């Protein structure tokens, strides 16, 4: 029988893979995709909790998260476009006008 | 002592805030009118001095408590109050500050050539801060003024100073601020240990009973802040650098008033707040003071720069003040108080004189001078008088202070025997005479070798006006110091009473045993005789 734990583990895996991507990849677009992956993992746990608790609040939350993700995507991609125009590279580490 | 708002005219607030008002006034004057700016600042500081005179006249010499007090709620939520007042100890320092300010302004009339407006504003701000720190009776208020003193002084050295001014001013600021932050934490600690309605009033803490361990830590925090300011060896390293880099005005105010804040802090706060810790720490304070006296004198001996020499002599002189305070005898403390005033006047005058010659020659190296008496006879006379005062020749103010400190410490009937310290400190007096006279001889006498020195002109009218009041005071205080001592004495007695009465809590057996053991020494010594 597939229970809540199974879904939570999948969600944790997706979340972890997303975190991994954010921390190791350097291409801004890919990093951003990984963040979307993390949001999906969050949605998955919301929906799973919702399903096994019998309520539907989690669904609404997931809906809002999608809306927020869309808003983030619009701004984020615009920023990526903007950066590429000024510098022609998306490597986050190459963004080196500022010293550490 | 019950503090209340004596319902008369708020003289202290007026005197404290007048310079600030003057500074605001100056901001409105365009910077091109330099003469107007200088005149205005000088006039204003004279007004402040005149306004401060009523404090002296209204002061009741027989009253040991705070006078002309003002008390207002300020931040009731945490018990901060606006409490001002003077007693016999702070009265003289207030007078000294208001007296020195116009003299300094006139003294640096020509030496400040750039950014005159900012200089004057800084200076008046500094005066407000100094006066505020001297008259505030609330720990919070005191801390505010205490820290506020740093900023104008920091700018005075950093903007108008010599070549290495930035390193010197940062060192000055950091060392003093570091000390005071620890003091702040200590203030919170006693605040938190006190029962009853929240209050930062100083007098509410003069009955606070703390265990010896607590007292020692807290005294350490307070003493560190003040010892850096005094400065006591080994916290003195900022002073010579600050003095050498500061403009004349900065040096004079530093030596004249700011350093007194350290010793004043000991008298007003550190010692009365933690009497038992003071008792335990007495040999250490006296020891550091003695080391300071001798070490400062020895270093002064080795200096080739006149100003640096005077700076190290300050370390030495303030050692006497601390020694007198450590003795805790009436004579010793009186001497220390007098020595504070003397040092303010004579060292201030010395720095002014050094400034005079620096303005003419743009050097302060002893080796560059020699035979100055031949071209500047009056200058030499003035210099001699001030040198004598600094050495402590009888008839000048320096003598009274040093003598009282040494004799008071020697004859002190406290539990600690400080006679050996006096013996060592006395060598400081001899060394002092030696380095001052040697310097005087090298600068003033001998052949007039250097071509540039031949064209030097003697004191001009402005310099006469600046120096004369100081010279007069040197003699007045040397010959007839009684009018000062009279006003001090009741407050000094009150201070001694508070600072020598043990306030350990009943359950601090360990601390009580330690104090008892120390007190026992005296009886033991008496019996041995």
């Amino acid at each position, binding site marked *: 029988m597939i229970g809540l734990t199974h879904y939570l583990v999948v969600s944790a895996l997706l979340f972890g893979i997303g975190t991994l991507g954010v921390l190791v990849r350097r291409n801004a677009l890919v990093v951003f995709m990984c963040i979307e992956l993390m949001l999906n993992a969050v949605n998955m746990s919301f929906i799973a909790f919702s399903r096994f608790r019998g309520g539907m609040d989690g669904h609404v939350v997931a809906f809002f998260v999608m809306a927020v993700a869309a808003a983030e995507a619009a701004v984020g991609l615009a920023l990526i476009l903007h950066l590429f125009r000024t510098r022609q590279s998306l490597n986050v580490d190459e963004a080196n006008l500022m*010293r550490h | 002592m019950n503090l209340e708002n004596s319902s008369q005219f708020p003289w202290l607030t007026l005197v404290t805030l007048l310079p600030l008002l003057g500074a605001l006034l100056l901001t409105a004057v365009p910077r091109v009118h330099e003469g107007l700016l200088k005149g205005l600042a000088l006039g204003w500081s004279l007004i402040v001095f005149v306004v401060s005179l009523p404090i002296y006249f209204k002061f009741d010499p027989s009253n040991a408590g705070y006078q002309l007090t003002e008390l207002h709620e300020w931040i009731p939520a945490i018990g901060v109050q606006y409490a001002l007042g003077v007693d016999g100890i702070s009265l003289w320092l207030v007078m000294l500050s208001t007296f020195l300010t116009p003299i300094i302004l006139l003294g640096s009339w020509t030496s400040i050539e750039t*950014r005159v407006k900012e200089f004057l504003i800084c200076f008046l701000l500094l005066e407000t801060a100094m006066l505020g720190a001297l008259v505030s009776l609330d720990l919070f208020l005191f801390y505010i003024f205490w820290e506020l003193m740093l900023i104008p002084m920091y700018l005075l050295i950093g903007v108008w100073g010599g070549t290495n001014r930035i390193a010197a001013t940062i060192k000055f600021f950091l060392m003093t601020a570091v000390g005071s932050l620890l003091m702040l934490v200590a203030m919170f*600690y006693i605040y938190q240990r006190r029962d009853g309605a929240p209050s930062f009033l100083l007098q509410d803490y003069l009955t606070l009973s703390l265990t010896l361990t607590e007292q020692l830590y807290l005294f350490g925090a307070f003493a560190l802040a003040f010892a850096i300011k005094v400065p006591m060896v080994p916290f003195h390293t900022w002073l010579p650098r600050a003095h050498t880099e500061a403009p004349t005005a900065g040096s004079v105010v530093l030596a004249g008033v700011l350093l007194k804040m350290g010793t004043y802090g000991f008298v007003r706060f550190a010692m009365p707040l933690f009497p038992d810790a003071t008792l335990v720490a007495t040999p250490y304070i006296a020891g550091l003071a003695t080391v300071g006296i001798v070490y400062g004198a020895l270093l002064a001996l080795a200096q080739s720069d006149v100003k640096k020499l005077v700076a190290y002599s300050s370390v030495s002189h303030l050692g006497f003040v601390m020694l007198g305070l450590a003795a805790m005898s009436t004579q010793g403390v009186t001497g220390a108080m007098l020595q504070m005033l003397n040092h303010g006047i004579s060292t201030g005058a010395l720095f002014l004189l050094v400034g005079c010659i620096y303005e003419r020659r743009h050097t302060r190296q002893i080796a560059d001078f020699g035979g100055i008496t031949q071209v500047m006879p009056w200058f030499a006379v003035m210099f001699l008088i001030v040198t004598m005062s600094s050495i402590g020749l009888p008839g000048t103010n320096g003598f009274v202070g040093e003598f009282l400190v040494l004799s008071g410490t020697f004859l002190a009937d406290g539990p600690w025997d400080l006679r050996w310290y006096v013996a060592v400190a006395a060598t400081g007096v001899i060394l002092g005479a030696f380095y001052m006279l040697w310097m005087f001889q090298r600068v003033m006498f001998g052949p007039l070798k250097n071509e540039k020195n031949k064209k030097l002109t003697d004191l001009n009218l402005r310099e006469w006006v600046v120096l004369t009041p100081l010279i007069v005071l040197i003699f007045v205080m040397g010959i007839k110091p009684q009018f000062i001592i009279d006003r001090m004495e009741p407050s000094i007695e009150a201070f001694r009473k508070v600072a020598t009465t043990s306030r350990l809590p009943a359950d601090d057996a360990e601390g009580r045993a330690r104090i008892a053991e120390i007190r026992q020494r005296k009886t033991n010594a008496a019996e041995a005789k």
Partner: protein
Amino acid sequence: MNIAFQIEDLWGILPAIVLCAFGGIAALAEVFADRSASRSFVAGLGGFGVLIALGVNCWQWAGIEGAFSVPLFGGALVMDAFSTFFNFAFLAAAGLALLLGAGYLRQHDADQGEYTSLVLFGATGMMLMAQSRDLIVFFIALELMSIAVYVLTAFVRKSRRGAESALKYFLIGSFASAILLYGAALLYGATGTTDATAMRPILDADPALKSSMLVQLGMLFLLVGLGFKVAMAPFHLWTPDVYEGAPSPVTAFMAAGVKAAGFAALIRIFTVTFGYDALEFGDSGNGWVGVLYGLAIVTMFAGNLGALPQTNIKRMLAYSSISHAGYLLIGLVASAFGDLSNASTIDQAVGPGSTIALYLLAYTFSTFLVFGGLSLLGKDGEEYTNLSDLAGLGFKRPFVGVAITLGLLSLAGIPPLGGFFAKFYLFREAMTLGRPELTILVLIAAVNSMIALYYYLRVIVFLYMKEPTREVPVFESRGVTVALALSLMATVALGVMPSRAVDMARRSMASLGSTEARAAARAPDSTQTADSIKAAAVKALDGAATRLRKAAPAPAAE
């Protein structure tokens, strides 16, 4: 199923609504207004909006003078003295950012209208963050604020650094949001609700649940997510780059507003929702105070030591902002020794909690003083913020020099400025509890203040004591002058006459755990509570007219 939307409830978020509306109007005005005239017109419009919102906020403050709170929208939001107090900080930040922006954008050749509307939208998000109790509303408000600030960071299109730092900020910010949401998901799983206040009774009723890994992980993720937002070490690495790259007015808005909003949320969620016992040391609690304690120390040192070698002022101020987050955490740790919603320990919690509010207010004005001055240096997308660029500025532009100096001294905690009093008050409240742990923490903070003095002073050295090495364009702007004058007055006033601000801060904290809020939280669905909410809302909002302040019980703080 209750309809949680009542028209009366809108009164409770009126300041946010006003700002939001003016944000929209400003965006429209930019489109329709005449191109040349639009700039000053739109900025003025935004300023007008902030003033109206400020007026509304004052009116609400007068109405809720008693220490109680009004739940709105079925408890998803709340209006209490706490949120109203923070609204003052947000409105100040927004207004000052608009004032600074006017001249800055002209100098850097950027549009005015969108700037205005983004600042207003961002401030709307901040206000709603401080008001929200439902984690979802909180999240959306957070995103509203964040997205506005991301865009503002990249607002000057000629600036390459702006583009870079905006993208960095965006990626880190979204990452943090995702982490925060994961925490919310776990807490939702544990309690079946996203309303943080409704979680409290559920958790209180079941200690096993409260100490379960599910809840603990949820709290951890929430803390980490918020830690990124308020630049808490070790989640602070993005701060210097972003602060340096963003336009100075935006950096100030970010440093002041975002940090205040983050801390408001931290206080509301971490202390009231989970209760102070969740934060308490030792066996009774879950050791979160220990974590915050450690974070406070790490954050202070990371900020102050990081600032020491910086040669760019904005980077330096970024590190300084990190260190201030550390000081603020002391307030949070200290307030954990009491419980705001427990009558017997509320006094212990109100004092330390109120230090955070006061500190943030003082920090807002000091920050704007410094960044306001800095924003004058630059042209066409290039900012001149190296230390050496400031050389001689103190005499070239005396007022700007004084403003920057006083701002820095206030940040350094030198009396008699607001920053000093805030720090003094913070240390005082922490020490007054008489706990040795807190004494140690305060000592560490004092040591940190000493370190900080050094790098603040260095800027003043350049302002007044060095000669300029290269020509730096410094423009004149009336807006900046006004902003600096206002911040200056506020900074000095907070230092010299802080009494009223202290009272307000204490009242705002006292309102966090007030009775009405708890009654509503216990039974959010009952009609009886709905009526009482309505009644309370009307009562509170009528306050100004009906002189409620006389009838209401005396504020707990006094």
